[in-house]
Structures are given as C-alpha cells and as structure tokens.
C-alpha cells in the first residue's frame, strides 16, 4: 500500500519476511536507506511495529509496517540488528503452558 503526501513525502509499506521456527521467530524487513537513529521498533507478545524514515535521492521516505504475529513471543527476548537497510529481528516463542485437568 502507498500513500502520497505533498512535497516529495511518501509513506511506504516495506517488504517483510517472517519465519516461524520451533522455538523462535525470525523477522526481517527491507528498509533501504534507513539509519539506526531514524528507526523506531515496538514489540508486544503478538505484534511488531516498525516506523522509520530515510532520504533517498530527493524523496523523504517514511516506512511503516505493523505485523500481527501468528504466535506469541517473549518481548524481553527480542534482539534486533540493522545491516545495509535490512532490519533483522529474532525473538523466542512463548512456551505454551499446558495444565493437566482431572476429569470429574
């Protein structure tokens, strides 16, 4: 999805790639031109939100992407790294707490 704003301002939805493994998720996002100082990352158990901005040529580009995760993660376990405009996020999947129920 793309929203147009006046004066070379543009909001774009970056490409993202989510991989769910046995005990962790790996999420990456393509945000070309972004530096760490212009990146905001928020996470909860079920959601990742990325806001970022970059100047590419004469364009001011604002990135926004909210991803609703198919599993619950531990927000305290989240690690993030930005390399060459690719944001990589890893997080542990919350173990499902099963409780044995006695049938009456």
């Amino acid at each position, binding site marked *: 999805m793309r929203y147009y704003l006046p004066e070379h301002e543009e909001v774009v939805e970056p*490409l993202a790639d989510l991989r769910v493994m046995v005990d962790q998720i790996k999420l990456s996002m393509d945000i*070309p*031109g972004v530096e760490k100082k212009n990146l905001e990352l928020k996470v909860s158990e079920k959601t990742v939100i990325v806001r970022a901005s970059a100047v*590419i040529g004469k364009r001011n580009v604002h990135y926004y992407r909210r991803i609703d995760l198919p599993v619950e993660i531990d927000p305290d376990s989240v690690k993030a790294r930005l*390399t060459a405009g690719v944001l990589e996020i890893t997080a542990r999947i919350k173990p499902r707490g099963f409780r044995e129920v006695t049938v009456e």
Partner: protein
Amino acid sequence: MELSEEEGDILLLGFPGNGLVGAISSDYMIRQANMKRAAKVDSRNFPPVVKLMDGMAIEPINIYYTKGIYVMIDEVALPPQSIAELITFTLDWFSKKKGKLVLLIEGLAVENRLEKEKPSVYKVYNNDKAKELASSIEADPLPSGYISGHIAHFLKEANYRGIPAIAVLVECFPSYPDPGAAAAVINAIKPLIKIEIDTQPLINESNAIRLKMRELMRQVQAAQRPAGYIG
C-alpha cells in the same frame, strides 16, 4: 513478436525471479549500453499488464539490441507456465536466427546474504560448447545437486535445439530486490559479452532501486515459486 533486422550472436534473458536479479541486471545493461528496443513479446496467456512510458502503453516483455547482443527483459510477474512458454518461444526464435549462445541470469536465494559483501556467482552449462564459452565468465561451476523450475526448463529446451546455454546464478536475498547481486553478476559476465558496463552507478542507486522494485517483488512472490537449487 515483431523484430527488426539486427542480428545478434548472444541472447541474454532476465526474468524477475529471486532478488529480481534478472530484471535488475537486464534493465541496467539496457540503460548503460544504450540498447535499442528491437522486439516485443506477448501472448494471450500472459497476465493483462502493460508498461507505461510517457503515457504510451507498451508490452512489459521486450527485447533490446546492441553490438551483436539481444537482452530480453521481463518486467511483469508471470506464473511458471507462462515463463516456460516464453522461454520456449524465445529459444525457437533465436534458433531460427542461428544464434550462438543464450544466457540466463538468475538469483540464488541464500539466508546469509547480509554477511556477504560480494555474493558468489555460479555457472551451469548445457553442453561442451557452452562449457568452453563459459570459461570467460568469472564464476565457479555449481557443484552437484538439482535445479528446478524455469532454469532447468531453459537449459533443457536450449539443448533440444542445439543452442549452447549458460545459466549464471548469483547469491541474493530470498525476499528482497538485490541490486548488489545484480552488479556482481554483470561484472562476472562482462568478459564474455564484451560490453563495457560500469556497475558503480548501480551500487550508488541501490536504495532507490530497492524501493522502486518493491511492488514487483510482491507480485513475483504471489505469482510464482522461484526456481530453486538443491545442493
């Protein structure tokens, strides 16, 4: 298909596959070498998409020409059966023109692409003549394994027609446009195609290309399962 009278010995095919490497490298070579549009390719089986150039609607699959080389560029996401049809048709046409070599540029998706400043380039050929011609490509032969999808179709169909064919594969991002990989593959094939192309501007405009090609990448992921290599 409409064609001009120019003759070319080499045909280079660039599809928007993994990392859009084929499409990005073809587009860049066409622009840098100032190639002229020599033909357009269309089929009723292709998706109804046209490319706009200053208000003019043109077919999104075109063949450009310069100095004995044709470059075919596909700027629309095609389903696998349409890519196979396009390869078959183009090889028939090139065979009638008695072309000497056909090249296919494609991305090889790797998980650790971010760790590689210079992605590795590999080559696969379909006969001894192609192997000889491929010796000037700065790439290693792909080790044993299997190739599936349109790359395999390309190599086999070219062989049926007696045309030497080389697939040149470069490591790239699995899910994002990769201009860096496109630059690496252009540098690898330059000694063979003998066209002087400076890839530094491609690196410099890398962010703009990644942004511009985002929608095509989405369409490709939706339309097709990219060709793969299982080592």
